[in-house]
């Protein structure tokens, strides 16, 4: 379809403000292909069907809108965990603040170093999984990232990695506009846990490409919080081999604009993909979970569990799709998106989709929007639990199904404690 002139203009204006970084020839090729993809697709516009509930304007405009730095006492999440810290400040790797990039069964390199190498395994993945994820739905901001992101990490797990790799995104400049691109490969039988936290920048565009080989396991727990004015668009592109496992959980609190896209292709039989998220929005908060899971092998299982609690005019969006290709028999697909609206000003938009071309599958989806259950509220109060605490208890109960998707109990507890802390700090009365 031909692009409209305003769309072409907006895209060209954005491209003109960015410079394609130098590198080895394969990298330069990958980047110029990505630029071509951006040109062909055009950057998202308000009238695009995929951006119906989320305004892309602030994510595509040339200058990043300013974002004040977080002023709060809370210590960053995951602080008490034994982990390998990889720190980025406003989107730039900080070797001083990071741990040594090494570990058992693990290799970690900076993308900027990898980009200079004439031969590197990342060549088969960088921009490749992103490209695969562009059909059937276009994701131009991910292509933009492939073209221009200079920093990020390239991680390979060759066996079971016991210590989580913790990507920490620090925001220091009110005008920072950061792009990070990570490439992750989990080899046959290997296991890796990635943690992510921090506001990253005033505006953040992040892509993570993940190749999970046969029998491999990938776990991902992310906490997006703190800064109120930050904006972010993130993409995860994952390809799953036979009997592999992919589990991702995201906690989002605060943030003027967050769009998290997750694109998963189950390409090997008996693979498992779980994606979950809990979001708490208060006031000027817009949060969008967009998920696309493709079943292209037999007996795979996928679960999408997304819960949002919204108040004071906060907005939540969920677009989730399960695509079952021909031949993907015995697929087990499940999707639930729910919102708890704590007042009349908040809004939740849900677009659940199923598209199935195999005849022997189990797929279900559901979406609900509701207020606090008055019966449960009275029951709690009649036992002496004050209204504010009762609201928090019922809110946490609502979010629990998503948090339960985190396999590691200690990390699940850490997330629960964060949710509780956030609620307690804002408790009315």
């Amino acid at each position: 379809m031909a692009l409209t002139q305003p769309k072409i203009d907006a895209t060209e204006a954005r491209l003109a403000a960015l410079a394609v970084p130098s590198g080895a020839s394969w990298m330069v090729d990958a980047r110029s292909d990505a630029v071509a993809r951006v040109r062909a697709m055009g950057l998202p516009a308000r009238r695009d069907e995929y951006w119906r509930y989320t305004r892309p304007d602030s994510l595509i405009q040339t200058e990043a809108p300013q974002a004040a730095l977080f002023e709060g006492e809370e210590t960053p999440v995951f602080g008490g965990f034994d982990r390998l810290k990889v720190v980025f400040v406003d989107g730039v790797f900080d070797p001083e603040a990071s741990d040594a990039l090494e570990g058992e069964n693990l290799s970690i390199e900076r993308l900027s170093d990898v980009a200079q190498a004439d031969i590197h395994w990342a060549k088969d993945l960088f921009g490749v999984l992103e490209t695969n994820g562009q059909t059937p739905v276009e994701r131009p901001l991910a292509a933009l990232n492939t073209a221009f992101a200079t920093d990020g990490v390239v991680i390979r797990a060759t066996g079971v990695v016991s210590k989580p790799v913790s990507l920490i995104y620090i925001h220091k400049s009110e005008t920072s506009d950061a792009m990070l691109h990570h490439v992750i490969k989990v080899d046959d039988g290997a296991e890796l846990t990635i943690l992510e936290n921090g506001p990253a920048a005033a505006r953040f565009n992040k892509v993570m490409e993940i190749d999970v080989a046969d029998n491999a396991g990938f776990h991902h727990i992310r906490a997006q919080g703190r800064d109120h004015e930050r904006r972010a668009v993130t993409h995860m592109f994952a390809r799953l081999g036979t009997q592999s496992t992919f589990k991702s959980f995201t906690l989002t609190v605060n943030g003027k604009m967050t769009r998290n896209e997750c694109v998963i292709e189950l390409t090997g039989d008996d693979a498992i993909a779980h994606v979950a998220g809990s979001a708490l929005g208060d006031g000027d908060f817009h949060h969008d979970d967009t998920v696309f899971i493709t079943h292209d092998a037999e007996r795979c299982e996928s679960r999408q569990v997304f819960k949002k609690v919204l108040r004071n005019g906060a907005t939540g969006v969920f677009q989730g799709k399960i695509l079952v290709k021909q031949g993907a028999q015995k697929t087990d697909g499940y999707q639930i998106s729910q919102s708890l609206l704590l007042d009349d000003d908040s809004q939740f938009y849900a677009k659940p989709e199923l598209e199935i071309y195999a005849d022997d599958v189990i797929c279900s989806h559901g979406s609900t929007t509701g207020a606090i259950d008055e019966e449960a509220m009275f029951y709690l109060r009649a036992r002496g639990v004050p209204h504010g605490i009762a609201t928090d208890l019922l809110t946490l109960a609502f979010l629990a199904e998503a948090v339960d998707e985190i396999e590691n109990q200690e990390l699940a507890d850490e997330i629960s404690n964060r949710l509780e802390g956030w609620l307690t700090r804002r408790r009315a009365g």
Partner: protein
Amino acid sequence: MLEIKGLKVKLEEEDKQILKGVDLTVEAGKVHAIMGPNGSGKSTLSYVLSGRDGYEVTDGTASLDGEDLLDMEAEDRAAAGLFLAFQYPVEIPGVGNMTFLRTAVNAQRKARGEEEMSAGEFLKVVRAKAKTLKIDADMLKRPVNVGFSGGEKKRNEILQMAMLEPRMCILDETDSGLDVDAMKLVSEGVNALRSEGRGFLVITHYQRLLDHIKPDVVHIMADGRIIKTGGPELALEVEQNGYADILAEMA
């Protein structure tokens, strides 16, 4: 202890008078029973006293130990010592029974300016009390009332009562949905809590519960009023003759 005077209540949503002037005093250490036909206002009385939304008090007063109940939020009434055992205990998915109990106990203690119970101390007490009510560890761990049988729900109500140690207990049709064994267990739980300083108001449709929880005073409620008050023999009279005779006698 519980003093209700000329209480008149209507539904907020529709202009319907439910209680038309209830007078009732429950003394400390006593068990009062309220019996009456369906729709007489028994459950409404329990809800109005415990602070449920949707009712409008148009006249009269209700106080506990001299404190005006009707002026308080539901949670403050609970902290003041009022407890309602629900006819239909509410299921709360996602909230563990233990968390619920501990939150309630400590919220009430805090409201009264008392020290909160430590996790260890709480666990010890709750286990002992649960045991006498035949509530196992699994029921304590599960979400509040979720997947509980009718009998388990009612036992859970009594466990809450035992943990919260209220001054004034209102039991709303606690016998409904119970088989004979469950009724015995629940009644034993209630009887164990009978004491000098504690009052009970037992709302029931049938006399059979009163075989187990022996009342000191029996009231008959009809059409939003207490129309007759007597001793335990009044309950037996209802059992034998139904409400028709009493209603006819008062008419």
